[in-house]
């Protein structure tokens, strides 16, 4: 342990899923279709968002997100309640994205990767939107290993310990990866800003 000793319990604290979610999971396992639909509704958007930001392609993201949600609902019996349900779901989404990325590499060269075109007119693009666009660009430039940890922490609100469990890596390794990813992202973001202003 370090010298600071912040107090409080530093033990692993994986918060259990909210009670109602556990109830929905149990009901879905019993064959309740409305519970299954509820789980689908709750997790589809975060999963699609994660897949889109990992794969940077709407079509591939849709395939990966769909495959993820099918796997989640088919394999509910494998879910262990000592993990947060969303952490388990993101673990499946991550593996599916890795598979999709491999398949995509075989299907087409990286030069064909589609850039998500939001088609906003120049008049509609505010400074905030330009920053968001630069962030999207910087995230796309990040190596997948760095991108996934940032997405999981900053956008999907997983805890550091949960990311370590999901990636099956020591927490120290995950922290180093996150620090390097943040620095790289900031550099890329600044470079895109400089490029945009040039």
């Amino acid at each position, binding site marked *: 342990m370090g010298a*600071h000793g912040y*107090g*409080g319990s530093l033990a692993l*604290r994986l918060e259990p899923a909210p009670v109602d979610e556990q109830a929905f999971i149990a009901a879905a396992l019993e064959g309740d279709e409305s519970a*299954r639909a509820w789980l689908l509704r709750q997790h*589809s958007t975060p999963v699609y*968002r994660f897949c889109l930001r990992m794969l940077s392609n709407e079509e591939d993201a849709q395939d990966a997100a769909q495959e993820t949600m099918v796997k989640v609902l*088919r394999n509910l019996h494998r879910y262990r309640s000592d993990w947060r349900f969303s952490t388990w779901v993101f673990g499946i989404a991550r593996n599916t994205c890795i598979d999709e990325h491999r398949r995509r590499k075989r299907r087409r060269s990286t030069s064909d990767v589609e850039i998500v075109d939001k088609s906003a007119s120049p008049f509609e693009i505010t400074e905030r939107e330009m920053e968001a666009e630069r*962030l999207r660009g910087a995230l796309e430039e990040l190596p997948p290993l760095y991108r996934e940890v940032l997405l999981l922490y900053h*956008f999907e609100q997983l805890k550091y310990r949960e990311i370590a469990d999901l990636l099956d890596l020591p927490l120290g390794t995950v922290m180093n990866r996150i620090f390097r990813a943040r620095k790289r992202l900031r550099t890329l973001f600044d470079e895109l800003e400089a490029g945009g202003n040039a």
Partner: protein
Amino acid sequence: MTRHIPDDVLLRFVEGDLDDDEAVEAALHIDACPHCAARAVQAEPLAEVFAALPDPELPVGFEERVLAQLEHPEAAMAPMRVPWLGIGMIMSAALLMVAGGEPTVVLWKFAAVARGLGVAVNLFLNHLPSPSAVLTIAALLTLGCSLTAVRLLGLSRESA
């Protein structure tokens, strides 16, 4: 009682400037302390940009498609676009077995079959043909046919 992470330490944490043990300790504290977690998020220079990134909209009909895929798994299965490739692999392997030959040749053929099986497994996993798969099968089939022909020719000469 919980002591929060001091500002300077938190800033060094966000910048990745703590040593490994300190960083792990701070991370565990942040995981357990919503107050410090919020401060750490705010200390990230790109925090506002992160927050401003709009959420993509779920494609229309997404949930219906997932439910349909669950109801009709056969429709959801990725089609085996090239089932004949697997058959080709088995035929190649069978031909090589029949052909027999000198130990060095057998060793070489074993390597070829192993490569072929690797390609077959790859195909099974990815459901995608590749030029190398097609070439490997073509080479194996040619080799198998040639060796079988040589073997049969040798047998017919022996019997004559």
